[in-house]
């Protein structure tokens, strides 16, 4: 007979940061964020069950199941709050073609409406019932509160570590920060907490050099685990420093904690709705406000706005983003990207030219940055 200690915890997979992982953990499941990307071969594999004009991250996600990626195949059930069309349809394709059980839940867009908040709470309750069924373990209020507190501690550490990047010479690179984000999603949360605390101590003690590299904010769609082309180019080859990220695999999801002063299911519903918004949420102005706040807070010199090809949310709203920052006098380079290697040289040239203008303090740079889309989109 299997002893309780030998029972392997169920692995609850999820893609987007609107999934309340505290609830999964409180039911005894191991939350696993699936956010790998960057490999064109896996994308091609996923295209078999989608279409050529499907978002590259969604195609990769389908392809990873098709290719038998061990992390993806280890998932017992997928939980998906329907964020964007591509991801929800990607999840349905994974269920249909690879037999992976999934539960689709709704995520309101108009987050300020009372009906949306009430509806979201009911959705979180449905999630609770479903994950309890998966694990056979009831979620208790005390257990859920404990998980909320634990994940909030991790969020606070990540935010505090990020704040060290407000220094003129940040003690860690943007690439290193993304590694910490991976730790949050891949490691058991207690191990991640211990690592964050220790790292924060070490980084805080570092003495500033007096240098001030060019400070970049990367904003836009998901920067997947494995999609490090841009980060490498900016930091390793072009000698700039990514000091903050306004995307869902950087600082953004850790910026605001889940409230701890109200009933936990309500707290999860409100906390997740109120997190720093993705471009999928409405109104767009709130997302732009948040981007502006980050840019000011981290005193960025310029922004690289990246949208994956066929990402409706970030591609269509990109122009509004650029216009907002043009008004603020912060140059933006807008890039439409994918996971192929073929445009690496082109990307490097564009980034190089953009940064060269910035370094020269070219007064015309804002205008040129603002017209990048046409050039980037050209074949």
């Amino acid at each position, binding site marked *: 007979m299997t002893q309780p200690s030998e029972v392997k915890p169920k692995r609850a997979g999820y893609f987007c940061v609107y999934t309340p992982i505290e609830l999964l953990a409180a039911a005894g499941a191991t939350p696993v964020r699936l956010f790998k990307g960057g490999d064109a071969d896996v994308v091609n594999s996923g295209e078999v069950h989608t279409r050529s004009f499907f978002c590259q991250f969604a195609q990769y996600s389908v392809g990873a199941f098709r290719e038998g990626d061990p992390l993806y195949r280890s998932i017992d059930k997928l939980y998906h709050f329907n964020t964007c069309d591509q991801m929800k349809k990607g999840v349905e394709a994974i269920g*249909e073609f690879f037999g992976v059980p999934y539960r689709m839940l709704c995520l309101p867009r108009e987050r300020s409406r009372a009906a949306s908040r009430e*509806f979201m709470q009911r959705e979180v309750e449905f999630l609770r019932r479903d994950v309890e069924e998966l694990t056979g373990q009831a979620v208790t209020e005390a257990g859920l509160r404990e998980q909320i507190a634990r994940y909030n501690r991790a969020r606070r550490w990540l935010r505090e570590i990020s704040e060290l990047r407000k220094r003129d010479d940040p003690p860690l690179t943007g690439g290193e920060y993304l590694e910490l984000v991976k730790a949050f999603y891949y490691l058991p949360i207690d191990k991640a907490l211990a690592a964050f605390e220790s790292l924060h101590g070490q980084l805080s003690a570092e003495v500033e050099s007096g240098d001030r590299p060019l400070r970049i904010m990367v904003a836009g769609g998901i920067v997947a685990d494995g999609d490090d082309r841009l980060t490498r180019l900016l930091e390793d080859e072009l000698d700039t420093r990514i000091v903050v990220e306004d995307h869902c695999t950087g600082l953004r999801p850790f910026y605001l904690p889940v409230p701890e002063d109200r009933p936990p299911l309500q707290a999860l519903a409100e906390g997740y709705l109120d997190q720093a918004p993705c471009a999928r949420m409405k*109104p767009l102005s709130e997302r732009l406000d948040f981007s502006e706040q980050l840019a000011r807070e981290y005193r960025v010199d310029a922004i690289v706005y990246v949208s994956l090809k066929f990402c409706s949310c970030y*591609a269509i709203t990109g*122009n509004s983003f650029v216009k907002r920052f043009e008004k603020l006098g912060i140059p933006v380079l807008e890039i439409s990207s994918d996971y192929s290697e073929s445009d690496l040289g082109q990307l490097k040239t564009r980034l190089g030219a953009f940064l060269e203008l910035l370094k020269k303090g070219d007064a015309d740079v804002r205008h040129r940055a603002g017209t990048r889309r046409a050039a980037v989109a050209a074949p």
Partner: protein
Amino acid sequence: MSVTVQGPVVQLSRRREHHEVSQVDWLKSRTGSPAVDRIFELALSYIQRADEAHRQGRKVVYGGGMTDAPIIHATDTFPCVFPELGRLASDGSVALAEDHFRIARETCSMVKATMGELLKRKGLFKRLINYCSLCEPYNAAFEVLKEEGYDIYSVDLPYRSEGVTGQRFEHLVDFAEKELRGLATWLGGRYDEARLGAEIRRLNRLHAKVRRVLALQVAHPDYIGTLETLFVWNGANHNYGVPGEYEALLDQLIDELEAYARRGIESTRVPIVWAGGRGQEFGLYKLFDDLGGFISSWTMTGLLLRDYDEGLSPLRAVARNTVIGMGGPGGSKDQLPHLEEAVRRTGSKGIIFYGYFGCSFSSVNFEVLKKHFNALGIPSLILDGSFQTGDPSGQNVTRLKAFMEMVQ
């Protein structure tokens, strides 16, 4: 008899602008059905009449072609729907959207064509309804359109994924009902239940008549063709802004079809189910007729002809149909029973899945549905088309010809 057109029907070598003129010519042509001729006239004058209604101080809104129709009519609002707006949109509208909004070229043509048209029309009425779960590119595009001064109400519909029934389904309807009450208030200032109830009964009556037209056409497909059926169907909810006249035309068309049926003329046309969008590639529909086929069911969008439950409160009935009937919010397999029923009922020989290139939600739906029908031995074809006016792509023409040869 089918549409009588002046000159060759589909000349793919012709320049695109010739086809835009040709599309209007088709709608101006005499079909042999006086009722359809008048419906074509209503379609041709529809947007102009919406503009005129606005100039005369009537409430006009972009929307009303779907399950929201009773709410729009009940608030004395003139509905101006996207598919008809799309009939005005050319490649120029798409280029305008790409240029002005810097929308990437890979974005769905329906969204770009609509954006371009709305930009051109921004001096006119500016109220617009957005259904959040229908389409991601539209969600983003409408946020951008707000910057052009558009007053947009987003109905935050829930996504009804596969297998959602019982308590959870009712929970989705609860939310939709609240959102639709917000829409009714936004449109009319207050929610008038009695008016909405009357509109539901009227639309149920109209839907029954449209279904009767479609049934008669399936039994005797030579009297009216695909394009004619499409325009009858298109008006089912918005009524081209003239509910009384539209209903009278349905009665007239039913009389015409019944008279034709009594003549006992046999047809050799091959019935095919059409699933998915209804683009403006008129040549494709006409080619379909020319190849000896006819569309026996406009499934998916056909769900919009579902009766509203008169046993429920009117708003609940609209909410229920909205959660069930709007193609976008449903799971990929959601359309299976409806498609199976359509194939069975009409004896159809195959299914055409038609979506717009770049459509973010229909693509996986089609792959899932195609897999199912392949297993059943029912042929199907996925076509990626475009929303704006213009000839069908050569690739689609070739594929449609090959498909029709196969099923015949």
